[in-house]
């Protein structure tokens, strides 16, 4: 009997595999073309994060910061290009920035100076964490281990999603090789939950054994190999097998989508 331990309980890390806006919801002067090639603007984003952190430090250092100070910070956050990139490339960390701003706003309004300091630290941490997630995403694009923002944006069909899953798995193996086990496991879990799950329905009717095997590989075979410190050859063998199965899934999905009935 196949029994899989609840590997799906793995906590999702800062690596973001989440959504990308079809049409940019960009802020300030950061346009769609820049958003599509965000990895080329990392120096600009670093500068913007440093400016935002400086804003926070100014607020924290004031004897009696006021609502206008926080409003100005919000305006600045809304204007910078890094906002849109965090929003699209690091969606998991994005709410944390807003939550940090809200907490700071509340502490300022309450006039709690210790609370302001603590909230400021939390907000700065959230900004840096988000920047770290964006930098990781940029690294993945630059090294060809992750799809570009434009590719990610367009991934609405089954075969396109399968391509993203394969890229995620390759990145997970790269993380494993770099001794980042938890990040590798988080990537595998997240791509299973966020991407593969959505494809299962169409695949089950055509090849249930394929789905069953892939479910097992996502949730048991590959993560368990990593947990027991398997060698690169063994890991690559499993990756190769999963990629072959996913290519098969892609062909099935292409045929399914071509034959799907019209909505209207």
């Amino acid at each position: 009997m196949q029994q899989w331990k609840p590997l799906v309980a793995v906590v999702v890390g800062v690596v973001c595999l989440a959504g990308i806006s079809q049409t940019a919801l960009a802020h300030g002067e950061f346009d769609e073309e820049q958003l599509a090639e965000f990895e080329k603007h990392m120096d600009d984003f670093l500068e913007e994060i440093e400016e935002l952190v400086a804003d926070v430090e100014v607020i924290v250092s004031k004897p009696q910061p006021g609502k206008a100070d926080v409003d100005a910070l919000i305006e600045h956050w809304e204007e910078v290009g890094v906002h849109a990139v965090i929003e699209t490339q690091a969606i998991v960390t994005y709410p944390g920035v807003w939550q940090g701003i809200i907490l700071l706003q509340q502490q300022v309004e309450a006039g709690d100076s210790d609370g302001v300091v603590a909230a400021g630290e939390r907000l700065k941490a959230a900004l840096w964490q988000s920047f770290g997630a964006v930098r990781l995403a940029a690294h993945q694009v630059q090294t060809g281990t992750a799809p570009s923002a434009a590719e990610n944006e367009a991934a609405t069909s089954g075969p396109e999603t399968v391509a993203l899953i394969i890229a995620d798995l390759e990145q997970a193996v790269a993380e494993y090789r770099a001794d980042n086990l938890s990040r590798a496991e988080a990537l595998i879990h997240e791509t299973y939950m966020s991407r593969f799950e959505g494809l299962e329905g169409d695949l089950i009717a055509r090849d249930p054994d394929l789905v069953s095997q892939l479910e097992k590989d996502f949730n048991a075979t590959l993560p368990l190999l990593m947990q027991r410190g398997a060698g690169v050859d063994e890991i690559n063998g499993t990756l190769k097998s999963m990629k072959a199965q996913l290519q098969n899934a892609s062909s099935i999905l292409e045929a399914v989508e071509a034959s799907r009935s019209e909505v209207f």
Partner: protein
Amino acid sequence: MRRRALLRALALLGPATAFARPLRAFADPSAGEPASVDTLPRLSGELTLYLGRGEGGLYEDIIAAIEKRNPDLELRIRRGPSTALANTLVAESRVGRLRADLFWSIDASSLGLVTRQVEPPAIPASLRDLLKPGFRYEHWVPISGRFRTIPYNPQKLNVAELPQDVMMLPESDARFGWAPAYGAFQSFITAMRLLEGDDATGAWLEAMAGKSSEFAGEFGVVMAVSRGEVDLGFANHYYTLRLKQGRPDAEVELAFTQNDAGCLLNASGIAVLRPSELATDFVRHLLTSEVQSYLAREAYEVPLMAGVPSPEGLPPIGELKPPQVDLERLGDLQPTLRLLRQTGVL
């Protein structure tokens, strides 16, 4: 192989016998009839939609069809996991920077979070009244549903041996399959908590833990049932229907409990965050007979409009008896996770 018969005195459940009393919501004569898309005005203007991932490309197909039919609609879409988008909406709302007009989520719990913390305006009565009673939420519109079911192997079990009450299942000596780390399973346990209380749910989990094999996903549960590795399991309805679509001879059938968490009807839905005629009309498109039929036909989802046939292989909806649960409260996951951990299930 036969399992010990239990609680034969109870009414039976199963594909042909468990549907004696119609669900009030589905049987209500005031339930709305779906309109054809041809009766709707053309959409024109800008809308920002936050779209929770799910159902493969089917939601995308619907959106593409709406866009094709309404070339003057400029739809800006942000995609992501429903939970992440809900958290973003909450954060945006708190600083008065809400950017989405609409939030289409694959699960009601994310909508519940948004409803509680963003407090979107009430859905216009003209829209709400299109839905069947029981699905008329004040701040969001259910689009399609999915039933919790008990897939069982007819070679291993006689459906007549099963109780109609999910809380009685621990008395069985059958072998179960479940996927406790799965979101749908956790919603099921949350519904059980809401209906039966934490103590009873904890006792149920403890009793079931020794009888149940664990799987990563609910399709794995259904496959294990069909292979006879377990006798029965817990899973959403569509896994079994999909499998039977491809393999009509697969050894798995669906059974339903009655008026309890075991036959919970959960829903996807959409919230209108910034009300406008355009946003309302967009939602109307999702409630048309065409879209509702498409979701039933292609995604095996349960239509929530009267007059739209159920997915093939599902009993007539009016004969099922899901419990009355406020779906928005299914987002109250922390106590559920605590119980799952306390009982060693997670």
